């Protein structure tokens, strides 16, 4: 009954969406505001309707209605309620509903904004948003339905379907299969919603871009309207990627945070184009240039968002056969192809109207350096896209699968990342419009010298690795330039108004949040670079099978295997938990408890490392789960991950910077009115 109700709500949402698309299109073409208003109301209606459907799934999940195929595949009686709720995005069908729910939420939010100055955009923003929503609803209703029930035939065959096949009865499994244990981590519970929020928010700037192309209002209004949407999308996408990295570090048990897996890359590609877009739109805002390029970037980002959603859950790129067997694979590719071609056709139609208003005057101007930044981001995108697609291409032409693993991506993107760091150091000091070596050199020499001093100190301290020294130098250089920018601004405020330095810094950032928020993001990147250099170039590992009381050494750490306990937990796990005491340079520093959880329902093991964290390094110990584990002897894999915590700190600062940049600025008129009002009240009072 609940399942049927939820399914019905989805069908009604699809009908409402189709009506909204038609009404908006007709209203815009015939210039009939009443039709556009009707379409706007239809878009508003989609949110409560998808909410009903999502709530129905949540009810079924929490209630344990295992006769529903989706419920049976992602929950089990041993799972706590919060995990049953989050199982909404634990499987493909549910996560598509969750995606649609977020899309409807953002569509509603954009509908409720003040459209006074952008009335002509409204119908086309509705059309793009609702077409995207309708596409996902079609996928859910016809191909990946979370409301399908299980039907049992007399020959004990169980079939999933919406309606009862002749001769079958409803099948009630005693228990479900449970959520994949790897997905039960807090990071994995928050990670998909963040990623999806990022994906969905990018639909809004794309919708405005398409509206600008269709209406011919090709000035930078669409960019100004969507600046905050873009930043919010970027914020969520960044947060999703960072959380995903932390989840991998905590749960996957291979001592790393990023494995260049196709699913990771799928989420990373829209981030790359989104980052290029965020830099590139500044050129259009400041100099009226690159209008074509900004359109291309937002179109690419939208297509990569759809591609990413598809890859994240379906895994069809693992082989040609999986792709061919997947019902939704060709549909996804068809939709991406159609939107890409339609968007490019619209862009070509308006090509002449999107000419630059000004000229590029200097190779060293900030806009020129931003363009180089875009080239490097596109380079990384090509490496990622081709690396993900090549195994499929190879299989099509040769019938043989190939692995394109981390060494390929690291070697191919390494120099490009280094180039981006150089630009990150130079571009903030380059002037818009015109910049020469002399002016740039005058601005840059102090941070440059400071960064060299830092490197000399590192060489003296004994670091000899050339790639590491180069990486650290670049990171120091960016840090020095960025901190100098904060210092210059704060000092100027201090000398002009006599404000104390902390207040001057606070107000400096507050008065120009996008600029200084961007600099905070750069500081975050520098810290992340420290962490990445540390773990990539200085990670050490060892493995050994120890009997009780035996020791193993890694660098200055000595670990002693103390004991092992094996027990069943009350949530369906068999836990093997080891105790190791840790000494650093012969001094006892604590105990670590690596463990291996074996989930009975899904018959999957999960390795939870024992981690001792300091700013210097992480000692990361895994109870190697594929070796026989007994209290007499156990195998441990031990990593020393230097500086890795700078990466997580950098991630937090990165997000903080994005929040500063996206924080709403007070409308000057409102402030002035309020000040006048306060003066009047003070005078009369």
């Amino acid at each position, binding site marked *: 009954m609940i399942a049927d109700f939820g399914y019905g709500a989805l069908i009604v949402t699809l009908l409402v969406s189709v009506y909204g698309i038609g009404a908006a299109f007709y209203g815009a073409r015939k210039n009939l505001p009443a039709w556009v208003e009707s379409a706007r109301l239809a878009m508003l209606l989609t949110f409560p309707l998808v909410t009903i459907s999502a709530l129905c799934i949540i009810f079924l999940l929490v209630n344990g209605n295992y006769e529903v195929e989706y419920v049976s595949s992602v929950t089990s009686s041993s799972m706590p309620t919060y995990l049953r709720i989050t199982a909404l995005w634990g499987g493909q069908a549910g996560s598509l509903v969750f995606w649609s729910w977020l899309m409807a939420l953002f569509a509603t939010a954009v509908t409720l904004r003040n459209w006074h100055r952008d009335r002509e955009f409204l119908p086309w923003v509705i059309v793009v948003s609702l077409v995207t929503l309708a596409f996902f609803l079609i996928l859910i209703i016809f191909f990946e339905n979370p409301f399908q029930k299980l039907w049992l035939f007399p020959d004990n065959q169980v079939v999933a379907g919406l309606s009862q096949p002749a001769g079958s009865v409803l099948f009630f499994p005693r228990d479900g299969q449970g959520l994949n244990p790897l997905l039960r981590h807090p990071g994995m519970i928050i990670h998909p919603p963040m990623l999806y929020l990022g994906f969905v928010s990018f639909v809004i700037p794309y919708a405005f871009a398409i509206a600008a192309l269709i209406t011919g209002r090709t000035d930078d209004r669409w960019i100004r309207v969507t600046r905050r949407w873009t930043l919010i999308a970027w914020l969520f996408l960044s947060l999703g990627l960072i959380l995903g990295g932390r989840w991998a570090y905590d749960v996957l048990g291979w001592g790393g945070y990023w494995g260049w897996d196709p699913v990771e890359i799928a989420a990373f590609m829209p981030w790359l184009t989104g980052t290029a877009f965020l830099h590139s739109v500044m050129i259009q805002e400041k100099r009226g240039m690159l209008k074509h390029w900004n359109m291309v970037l937002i179109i690419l980002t939208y297509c990569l968002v759809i591609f990413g959603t598809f890859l994240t859950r379906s895994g069809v790129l693992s082989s040609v056969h999986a792709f061919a067997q997947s019902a939704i694979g060709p549909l996804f590719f068809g939709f991406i192809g159609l939107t890409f071609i339609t968007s490019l056709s619209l862009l070509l139609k308006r090509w002449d109207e999107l000419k630059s208003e000004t000229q590029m*005057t200097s190779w060293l101007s900030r806009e020129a350096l931003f363009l180089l930044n875009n080239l490097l981001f596109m*380079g990384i995108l090509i490496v990622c896209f081709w690396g993900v697609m090549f195994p499929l291409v*190879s299989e099509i032409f040769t019938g043989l699968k190939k692995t394109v693993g981390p060494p390929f991506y690291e070697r191919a993107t390494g120099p490009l990342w280094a180039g981006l760091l150089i630009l990150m150091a130079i571009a903030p000091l380059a002037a818009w419009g015109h910049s020469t070596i002399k002016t740039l050199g005058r601005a840059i020499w102090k941070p440059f010298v400071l960064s060299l001093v830092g490197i000399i100190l590192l060489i003296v301290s004994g670091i000899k690795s050339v790639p590491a020294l180069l990486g650290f130098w670049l990171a120091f250089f960016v840090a020095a330039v960025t901190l100098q920018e904060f210092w210059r601004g704060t000092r100027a405020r201090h000398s002009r108004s006599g404000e104390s330095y902390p207040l001057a810094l606070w107000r400096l950032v507050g008065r120009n949040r996008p600029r200084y928020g961007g600099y905070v993001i750069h500081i975050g990147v520098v810290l992340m670079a420290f962490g990445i250099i540390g773990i990539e170039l200085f990670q050490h590992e060892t493995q050994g099978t120890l009997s009780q009381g035996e020791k193993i050494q890694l660098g200055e750490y000595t670990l002693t295997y103390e004991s092992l306990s094996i027990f069943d937990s009350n949530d369906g796990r068999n836990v093997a938990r080891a105790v190791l005491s840790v000494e650093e340079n012969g001094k006892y520093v604590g105990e670590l408890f690596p463990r291996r959880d074996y989930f009975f329902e899904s018959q999957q093991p999960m390795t939870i490392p024992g981690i001792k964290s300091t700013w210097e390094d992480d000692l990361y110990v895994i109870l190697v789960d594929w*070796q026989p584990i007994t209290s007499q002897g156990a195998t441990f894999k031990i990593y020393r991950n230097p500086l890795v915590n700078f990466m997580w700190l950098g991630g937090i600062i990165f997000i903080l910077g994005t929040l500063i940049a996206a924080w709403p600025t007070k409308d000057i008129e409102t402030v002035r009115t309020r000040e006048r009002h306060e003066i009047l009240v003070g005078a009369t009072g």
Partner: protein
Amino acid sequence: MPVGSLFLRGLSKKVWVSSLIYLILMLLIFFSTVNAQELTPNAPSDNEVNAIAKQLYCPVCENTPLDVCPTQACSEWRELIREKLASGWDESQIKAYFVEQFGDRVLATPPARGINWLVYIIPPLAFIFGGIVLFRAFRTWKKPAEMGDKNLAQPSSDEYINRLEEELRKL
């Protein structure tokens, strides 16, 4: 007469001979074992196995290096690496063996031959192409335009930044 001499005299010649043979045999066995231990390399350590396993990818699981793959099959493949190392094979021989058995997909990156060249050639070509497009666009843009550079002469839209820059110049 010492007790020892009586004891020795009591032993028959036959016992003496058989004892001598036994002693020689034991010595031979002992030395042969020592020699065998000296000749056969020590059993490869986990770290030696992992150093090679790290460079190979699980033929079953997607994108998982062999040194961290938790499946039973991978555990057996790691043992295979250990056996090969114990038999005196080197890293390249073991990698070649795995490629022969399971195909190129066990390697972290496709070997540079045939269609695989595409994976290495296309990204740099695309990047160079992008660079050329950008360079040409720069040159076109840099030609003096009739319309002039209107924004260049105008102050930036951000009054606050202009004021800040002005203050900095005065410092």
